[in-house]
């Protein structure tokens, strides 16, 4: 059993000590190497962004990513959406006994790579091992801290009438890639999760315009839920052109086959910006070559997202009621 995680890896004894030392070596930095009970952080300025998220994705590895990469990028992106620069991240594992050590190794490799790419330091962490059946292989929690350098507050309530709504690329890839890997439905495609950090684009956006009112990453619940939340918190209406929403043909086909609405499917490397329309083209450019203006904020139909359909009609884009299941009707 020496190639598997056992309860002894989490009982405070020698095995646990060795495992933690090994992990610390991997993420080696001054703060972590102190091996203190808490990390001591020096942070410039006095305004911080602080975010936490837990990751329980199944399967652990999927086309385009894995739970480790997701655990870093997800938290990093949440900090970025506040317009903050991510600096530090914590890393806590809850592991089901019996997990292959090699699997844990692959995941931590991936975390190392993703955190280096996002220029964020792992400064504190924890491992717990639970009995078989008490968790599903491995759960990861990460919390991140970033500094807010500018004055704006990128929250949903700040959206204003006339703002252009811009997305940085094609939607629904993460959700479809994970579903296809999990459900083993036998579809072969090149669809990959879009999981990645958004440091570069967000940095460019903030440099391009001082008039960005909201940034949001449409993760769980997809684009439709992100837009609905912003419409609600700003007490304004949102108008979206269905045809301008970028989506890859293969993803659209998968959605057609399974009876899914891609607007409700998760993304992990996408964000939307709400920006004063005079800066719209600048920000669109900053968001990359696949960025598209997909709609605008209006003063009527408050708290509601209206979707303009391809034939020029419109309908309400409602909140997601429950997860979508593959269907035949």
């Amino acid at each position, binding site marked *: 059993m020496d190639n598997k995680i056992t309860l002894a890896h989490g009982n405070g004894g020698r095995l646990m000590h060795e495992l933690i030392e090994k992990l610390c070596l991997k993420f080696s930095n001054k703060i972590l190497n102190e091996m203190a009970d808490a990390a001591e952080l020096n942070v410039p300025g006095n305004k911080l962004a602080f975010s936490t998220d837990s990751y329980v994705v199944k399967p652990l590895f999927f086309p385009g990513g894995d739970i480790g990469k997701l655990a870093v990028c997800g938290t990093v992106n949440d900090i970025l959406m506040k317009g903050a620069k991510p600096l530090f991240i914590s890393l806590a594992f809850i592991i089901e006994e019996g997990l292959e050590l090699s699997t844990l190794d692959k995941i931590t490799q991936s975390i190392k790579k993703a955190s280096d790419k996002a220029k964020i330091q792992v400064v504190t962490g924890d491992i717990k091992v639970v009995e078989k059946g008490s968790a599903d292989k491995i759960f990861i929690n990460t919390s991140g801290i970033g500094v807010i350098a500018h004055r704006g507050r990128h929250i949903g309530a700040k959206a204003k009438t006339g703002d252009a709504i811009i997305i940085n690329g094609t939607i629904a890839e993460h959700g479809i890639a994970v579903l296809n890997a999990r459900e083993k439905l*036998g*579809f*072969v495609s090149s*669809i990959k999760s879009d999981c990645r950090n958004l440091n570069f684009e967000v940095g460019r956006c903030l440099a391009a315009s001082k008039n960005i009112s909201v940034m949001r990453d449409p993760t769980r619940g997809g684009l439709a839920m992100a837009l609905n939340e912003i419409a609600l918190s700003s007490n304004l209406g949102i108008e979206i052109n269905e045809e301008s929403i970028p989506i890859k043909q*293969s993803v659209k086909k998968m959605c*057609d086959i399974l009876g899914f609405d891609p607007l409700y499917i998760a993304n992990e490397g996408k964000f939307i910006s709400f920006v004063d329309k005079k800066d719209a083209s600048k920000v669109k450019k900053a968001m990359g070559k696949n960025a598209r203006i997909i709609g605008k904020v209006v003063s009527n139909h408050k708290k509601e997202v209206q979707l303009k359909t391809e*034939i*020029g009609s419109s309908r309400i884009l409602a909140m997601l009621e429950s997860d979508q299941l593959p269907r035949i009707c």
Partner: protein
Amino acid sequence: MCLAVPAKIKSIDKKEALVDFGGVQKKISLGILDGVKIGDYVLVHAGFAIGKVKKAEAEDTLKALDELKEVSKYESA
């Protein structure tokens, strides 16, 4: 009532075919449809080819949709 999506037959092995939906491929059953050959378009429902699709008429439909979009563009302008 029934979702069915058109796909192109890439290869056939007895009563099984590999089809391409456009960037997505899957093995499906030819168990309830006769006279299918490679290159044909079929409608796929619940893992089965249920009928053939005529390509020329499918293209006409797409053209009509484009025309309709043009009209609605001008109307809303």
